[in-house]
């Protein structure tokens, strides 16, 4: 088992339809591949944590990082884990038309995210909170317009 966390930028703002399409595609594939986790989206800011068997997680990250819908993919963590921390895979964002989404499976409003489970180390939980902050800003009830730092830097080797 392992998990990966990354930050990225959508190449152009994603519409409700785009997000719905991504949700449908990913939900379906993730169930098949035993992938769970959570994706945050707001105003072009993207962050995702996903976990599962290494032989599924690594190729998925390859596919995601090549996906033309976003760029500046910055992998933050890629480490083995003892157990899953997320029971399902879900997506959190502010739809323009929330009524169509609220009842949708695997969809969450950003301020309705459940608390992080204790199975995450504090360092990993801190990481998820920081990327959540980077995507949604200090007040997740409000749509948040800002870009995370660019150009992306990397930890030196």
């Amino acid at each position: 088992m392992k998990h990966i966390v990354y930050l990225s930028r959508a190449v152009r703002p994603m519409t409700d339809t785009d997000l719905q399409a991504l949700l449908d595609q990913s939900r379906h594939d993730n169930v098949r591949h035993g992938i769970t986790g959570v994706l945050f989206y707001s105003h072009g800011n993207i962050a995702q944590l996903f976990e599962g068997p290494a032989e599924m997680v690594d190729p998925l990250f390859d596919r995601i990082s090549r996906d033309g819908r976003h760029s500046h993919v910055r992998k933050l963590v890629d480490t083995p884990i003892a157990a899953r921390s997320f029971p399902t895979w879900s997506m959190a964002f502010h739809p323009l038309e929330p009524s169509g989404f609220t009842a949708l499976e695997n969809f969450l409003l950003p301020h309705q995210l459940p608390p992080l489970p204790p199975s995450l180390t504090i360092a990993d939980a801190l990481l998820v909170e920081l990327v959540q902050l980077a995507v949604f800003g200090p007040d997740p009830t409000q749509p948040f317009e800002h870009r995370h730092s660019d150009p992306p830097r990397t930890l030196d080797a």
Partner: protein
Amino acid sequence: MPAPRFEQLLRRLQAGVATLEGPELRYGFVNEQMQVLVGANAEGRTLTEQPGLLPTALLEVLPKVYEAGTPYTARACACGPAADGPDRRYFDVMVDPYADEAGEPAGLLLLAVDVSEQEATRQRAHELALTTRQLDARLRVLTETAPLFTYTMSPEGEVTYVSPQWYRFTGQPETADLTAIWPLLVHPDDRLRVLFESDTARRTGTGWNYEYRLRRYDGQYRWMLSRALPEVHPPDQPVAWHGALTEVHLQRELSEARRRGEAELRFLADSIPELVWTTSAEGLVEYYNHYTKSYSGLTTEELGPTGWVGLLYPEEQAAAARRWVQSVASGEDFEGEYRLRRADGVYRWHTIRARRLNDGSGPRWFGAGSDVEEQHRLRQVLQTQYDELARAHHNLDTFVYAASHDLRQPTLNLRGLFEELSRSVRFTDPEQALMLRMVDTALTHLDGTLADLAATVQTQRQQQEPVEVLDLALGLEEILLGLRPQIVLQGASVEIDVQEAPGLLYSRANFRSVVHNLVSNALKFAHPMRPPQVLLRSYLTAQGQPVLEVRDNGLGMHVDDPHNPAFRLFSRQHTEVEGTGVGLYLVQRIVTSQGGHVEADSTPGVGTTFRVFWAAPTGLE
């Protein structure tokens, strides 16, 4: 005349054919095509009677051709109605004079070929050429005025064009051999790389994008960005590379300076035995210095963007993580003392600080951690010592109190016995009577000292006494009442003036001790030549601080520093006067313990004034 079969062919020829006979130029044969030009009923009429669609210019020329007898061709002759109308047609008209058997001019043979299509094409081409020339001119203005230089390079690497700016920039003459000269103008350190990259791109048919230093007219090398793309017409190989050259010197120097600054910063950070790290605007660590890695025994990878929190004492991690998220969200400094795990598993106290700074490439967090284990240990040692001292002090107080208490009873007993003794025993020797008085004095003194000692310890315990609003007039009267026997005995006059500040928030017991001591002091150190006069005045300073002034006309004393007079336990100035020296020490202790202070000024032989500032200037409630 043509044979009938031949005539058939002529009539259907896809060119106009007609004969004009005789000097009057009368239409003889006119085929179908020519009828379009001159009309269907032209045969037998003269040219002047039937000009048809033929242009005037041609009509005028035909008689002359007849006379001259030489062939004539009019190219793209516009025939038809309105000039440039849609029906306008163009013909190449060939005129051939012919002679009769006698060799005399007999007529003209007209051949008209419709060239309207060709003419239209030609005109379109002409218009196109005009537009092209305009576009070309615009392009040239653009390329030659834009701040970037443009150039063209052939697949073989020949430079076939550079815009004029390049000449101006390099100072090269327009006659320069571009292909030969341009590599020589590239900085020697960049030359091979640039040539290699451009050769490779031309060989593989791709564009290029590189930076190099180009020598300017004044000999200075300036950083340029060179970009080019091949011009391709598939399926052929590229025919040329067109590119642009932009000066990027300033940007380059700026980012170079930033890189250098960053490198210098990292060098410094890597050289010091302190924990140093930097994070992105999102609070994700991008850099840990060497010391952090060697201290923790972890690599940058193992630490990761948030791994530092895992080095903290387990119970402190969650709170520190919350603090950090809060700092990142608000931009506030992060600061705290935490225990950090060293590679060998030992936790050491560190002061950790992080601050958000903007270094031109967006906000970043800079963090530092200093080992304060030694200070921490020292602090703990000091705390232990302080606790021990406080305990010892308390024990001492208790001991003194108990001792003075316990000694008082035997002293009283002693005094009782002594009085009994002096009543019942008769001394004959007058010296012995004197000794008796001395023993009496010593006993009184001993009792007074014990009482004062007990009082000192007592006031120390009273420091936490509850405070209340005191009516000063009443309070002072009460105290004076206690001192009445002495006042009467010495014929002293005591005046009270509390108009300015009639109330005071203070502990009643402490107030009593202070005033009682000061007034009895004033009485005790009275001048032998005059009855004591004491003034008690309560007032407020400009800052609203309540003060009690006690002024006397007594012996006075020597004061080193009126704002900070030193009153030491058992130190006495007037040894000729009875007293234990406890009084002033007590006053000062009480007042300073409540945040106030005591001032004194005095002139020996004239008198003394004490001012009691009850509270600290800022500590006003």
